[in-house]
C-alpha cells in the first residue's frame, strides 16, 4: 500500500512538475515582457513620433487593451499553436521561429554532445583522477564555470582564429545550407557554448561523485580490487544518476539561454539572436513565444530528469 501510494505520489509529482512550471512561466514571461520600458510603438516611430502618433500605433497593435485581456488572448493563441504576429513586421511569429529552429538545434545539440562527456570526465577526474592533478582539474572546472561566454568567445577567437587561423571568427552560413554541413563555422560557437557548460556541470557534479565514492560499498569494491571503470559503471553511475540527470537538464537549459549571446556574437540567425533582437525591438509576441518555447524545452528536460531519478529510486528519487 505504502509503496503504491509512493508510486502514485511520484507520478502525480511528475505531472505537476511538468505542468506547473509552464503555467507559472507563462505569467512571468508575459509580465516581464510587459515590464520592459518603452514599447514597439516607440521603436516603430524611430524615436521621432509624436505622442498622438504613438497612441495610434499602440491602438493598432492592441497595446492599449487591459493587461488581463491581452494575457488571455495570448495564452489562448499559444495553446492553439497560433502565437500571433510580430508587432514590428506583421510576420507570423511561427514563421520567424520555424526558420531559426534548425540553427539553434544544431548548435545546442552539438554543444550538448560535447559538454556531457566532458562534464563527466572532468567531474570524475577531479575526484578519482591522478592525485596531483585533482586540484588542477578542480581549478580549471571552477575557473571555467566562472568565465563569461563573451570573454571565452574573445579568447577562442584570438587563439583559433586570429592566432592559428584554423576557423573564421564569424559564422555566416551560406544561403540554403544546413548548419551541420559546415562544421568549420560551428567550432567557435559550439566551444563557446559547451566549455563553460561542461565546467559548470562538472563543478556541481563533482560533489555528487565525491559523495558516491565515499560510500561504504564503493570503498569495499575498491578494497576488493575491482577496476576503476567497473566501480564507476556499477556503483558510482547509478548513485549519481538522479543528480546527473537533473544537472543535465539545467545545463541544457543554460545552453539554450547561452545561444542568445553566442548566436549574436558569431552572426548566426537562430532563436537566441531572435530573442535578443525582439527584446531590443519590444516585439512582445516574439519575445513571449521564444521564451515560452525555451521554458517548455527546459521544463521537459527537467521532467525527463525526474523520470530518470524516479526510475532509479522510486521511493526518494524524485524528492532528493
Amino acid at each position: 500500500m505504502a509503496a503504491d501510494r509512493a508510486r502514485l505520489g511520484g507520478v502525480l509529482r511528475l505531472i505537476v512538475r511538468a505542468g506547473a512550471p509552464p503555467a507559472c512561466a507563462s505569467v512571468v514571461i508575459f509580465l516581464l515582457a510587459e515590464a520592459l520600458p518603452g514599447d514597439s510603438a516607440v521603436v516603430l516611430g524611430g524615436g521621432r513620433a509624436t505622442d498622438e502618433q504613438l497612441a495610434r500605433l499602440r491602438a493598432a497593435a492592441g497595446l492599449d487593451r487591459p493587461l488581463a485581456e491581452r494575457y488571455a488572448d495570448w495564452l489562448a493563441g499559444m495553446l492553439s499553436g497560433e502565437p500571433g504576429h510580430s508587432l514590428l513586421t506583421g510576420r507570423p511569429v511561427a514563421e520567424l521561429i520555424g526558420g531559426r529552429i534548425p540553427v539553434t538545434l544544431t548548435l545546442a545539440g552539438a554543444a550538448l554532445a560535447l559538454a556531457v562527456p566532458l562534464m563527466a570526465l572532468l567531474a570524475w577526474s577531479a575526484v578519482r583522477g591522478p592525485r596531483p592533478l585533482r586540484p588542477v582539474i578542480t581549478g580549471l572546472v571552477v575557473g571555467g564555470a566562472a568565465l563569461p561566454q563573451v570573454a571565452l568567445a574573445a579568447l577562442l577567437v584570438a587563439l583559433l582564429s586570429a592566432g592559428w587561423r584554423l576557423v573564421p571568427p564569424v559564422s555566416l552560413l551560406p544561403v540554403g545550407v544546413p548548419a551541420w554541413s559546415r562544421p568549420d563555422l560551428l567550432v567557435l560557437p559550439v566551444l563557446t557554448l559547451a566549455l563553460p557548460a561542461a565546467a559548470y556541470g562538472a563543478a556541481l557534479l563533482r560533489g555528487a561523485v565525491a559523495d558516491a565514492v565515499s560510500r561504504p560499498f564503493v570503498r569495499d569494491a575498491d578494497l576488493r580490487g575491482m577496476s576503476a571503470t567497473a566501480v564507476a559503471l556499477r556503483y558510482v553511475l547509478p548513485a549519481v544518476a538522479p543528480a546527473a540527470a537533473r544537472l543535465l537538464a539545467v545545463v541544457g537549459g543554460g545552453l539554450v539561454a547561452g545561444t542568445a549571446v553566442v548566436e549574436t556574437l558569431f552572426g548566426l540567425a537562430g532563436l537566441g539572436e531572435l530573442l535578443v533582437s525582439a527584446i531590443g525591438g519590444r516585439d512582445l509576441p516574439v519575445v513571449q513565444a521564444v521564451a515560452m518555447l525555451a521554458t517548455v524545452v527546459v521544463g521537459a528536460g527537467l521532467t525527463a530528469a525526474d523520470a530518470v531519478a524516479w526510475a532509479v529510486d522510486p521511493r526518494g528519487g524524485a524528492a532528493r
Partner: protein
Amino acid sequence: MMSPRLSRRISAAVAAATLLTGCSSGGTDTAASPAASPSTASGTASDTVRYAAPGSPSNAPRDPHGLLPGESDLVRMALTYDVLTLPGPGGRTLPRLATAWEPDRSLTRWKITIRGDATFSDGRPVRAADALFSLRRMGEKAAENFGRMEMFDLDASTVLGATSFELVTEKPYAEVGKALEGATFVVPEGSTDFTRPVPGSGPFRPAGGDAQAAVFERNDDWWGPKPPSRRIEVRAVPDPQARGEALLSGQVDLAAAVPAALVRQHAENPSVTLVRRPGATLYPLVMRTDRKPFDDRRVREAVRLTLDREQLLQVAFLGFGEVGNDLLTPKDPTSPAGLPQRTRDVERARRLMAEAGHAGGVDLTLHSTTAYPGMDSAATLIAQQLAEIGIRAKVELAPADTYFSTVWGKEPFYLGYLGGIPFLDVVRVALKPGSATNETAWEDETWHAGLEAALAEADESERRTRLGALQSRLRDEGGYAVWALSDRLDLAKPGLTGVPEGIGFSAGFIDQVALGG
C-alpha cells in the same frame, strides 16, 4: 546572462540602424552609378555578390512604406521596388521611375510623369495609379516613416492618366523632386497584405533565402541599366564587428558600417578595400532654447566656443571624419559655403558666461547613451571641456531603449543622433514649430516664415541662397553644437565595383555592384 558590453553592442546596432535609414532621405554625393558595363555570362560563382549590412533579420519588414529599421531593409526594398526619384551627385535629383516632375505657377500642383515601360513581377504594368497609391500608403504610415509625405495633400492628388498623376502640396513647395527621393517604393495599387511579399518592378527579384539572408536574382525585364551581377545576397548582421570579420574571412564581399578600430587595424591589409563615406553620422550636442541656462543665447554660444572639436573627433570617431562647424547638414547642397570654421575661444566663452550671469558656474546633467559607438566617451570629454567655463556637467548614460523614450526630445541637454540626412529632412524631424520632436525648441517665427518663403521660391539658385542663410542663422543662434562628423566605413573585397558612394538613401541602391575579374 548577457554581459553589458555585448548588450551594448547589440542595442547599438539596433538603434543605430533605426535612425540611420529611417531618417535618411538622400545623400548628396552620388547615386548608384548607372550604365555599368554588363557582365559576362551567368552561372559562375562570381556572379553573386554577398553583402552584410546593418540590420536584424528578426525585425526585417516586408512593408516598404513603414519603418525600415536597418540598412539591410532599405537595400532589400531598393532591389525589389522602383522608387520615383533618387538622390544624385551634388544634391541633384535623378529620375528613376518618375521621368519628370513639373509644377504649376503656384508650386502647389505638380504633374509627375512616370515611365511607361516598367512592369511588376506578376506582369502588370506599373501605372501612375500604383505610384499615387504607394504615396498614399506612405501618408497613412506617417508615424513609421518620419512623416515623409507630410508636405503633400494626398487626398486632393489625382491620377491624370496611365503614366501621369497630379501631386498637390499643402503649401508652395519647390523641392518635390527631392521629397520623392529614395523611399517612394512603388507597389501595385490595392496591396494591403504585406505579411507576404508583394510584387515589385525593381532591378532584382526576391528569390528565397533563409532566416538571415535574402537572395535576389536579376530582373532581366527591368527597364534600367542591366545589373552586372546575376545574384545578390543581402544579409542582416546586427553586430558591426561581425560584419567586418565576415568580410575579412571571405564570407561576404561587402560589409557596411564596420567599426573604426577594425578599419584602423587593417589599414595596410591588401586584401580589403575601404569605402569611406564622409559626413554620414553626427552626434549634435542638443541645448533646449526654452530651458535654463540655454534660453540665453550667450550660453549656447559659449558652449560652441569651448568645444575642442579636433580632440572630440579623435576620441569619439578615432579620427575617421571631420570637425564640425555647427552646421547640421554640411553635405547638403544648400549648406552655406565659405563660413569660417568655428574655433576654440575659451576666454570669450568665459566672458559670455559671466555676462549671462553664470560667473560662478552652473550645474547641469548631460545625457548620452551607450547605444552609438563613441557617444558615451564624447559626452565625458565634452563635460571635461565645458568645466573650463564653469559648466559642471554630470554625464548620465542611458541604454538605447530608454534613451529614445526618456531623453530624446525631453531633456534640455544631451547628445543627439543624425544619420547624414538632408537639410529639409532635419527640418521635418527636428525643427518643426510646435512639434514634440522639435528637440531644441527652435520656435523662431521669422526663421520658419523664411523657410516657407524659401520653399515657395521657384528660382533654384535664389532658393539655395535663402536656405543657406537659414542654416547659417541656425548655426549661430540655434540650440545645436555640431562638433564633428564621422565617416561611414565599409569594407569591400578588392575589385568590387558599383558600390554607391553617397550617404543616406543613395547608399542603399546597390543594383550595379559587381565582382571584378
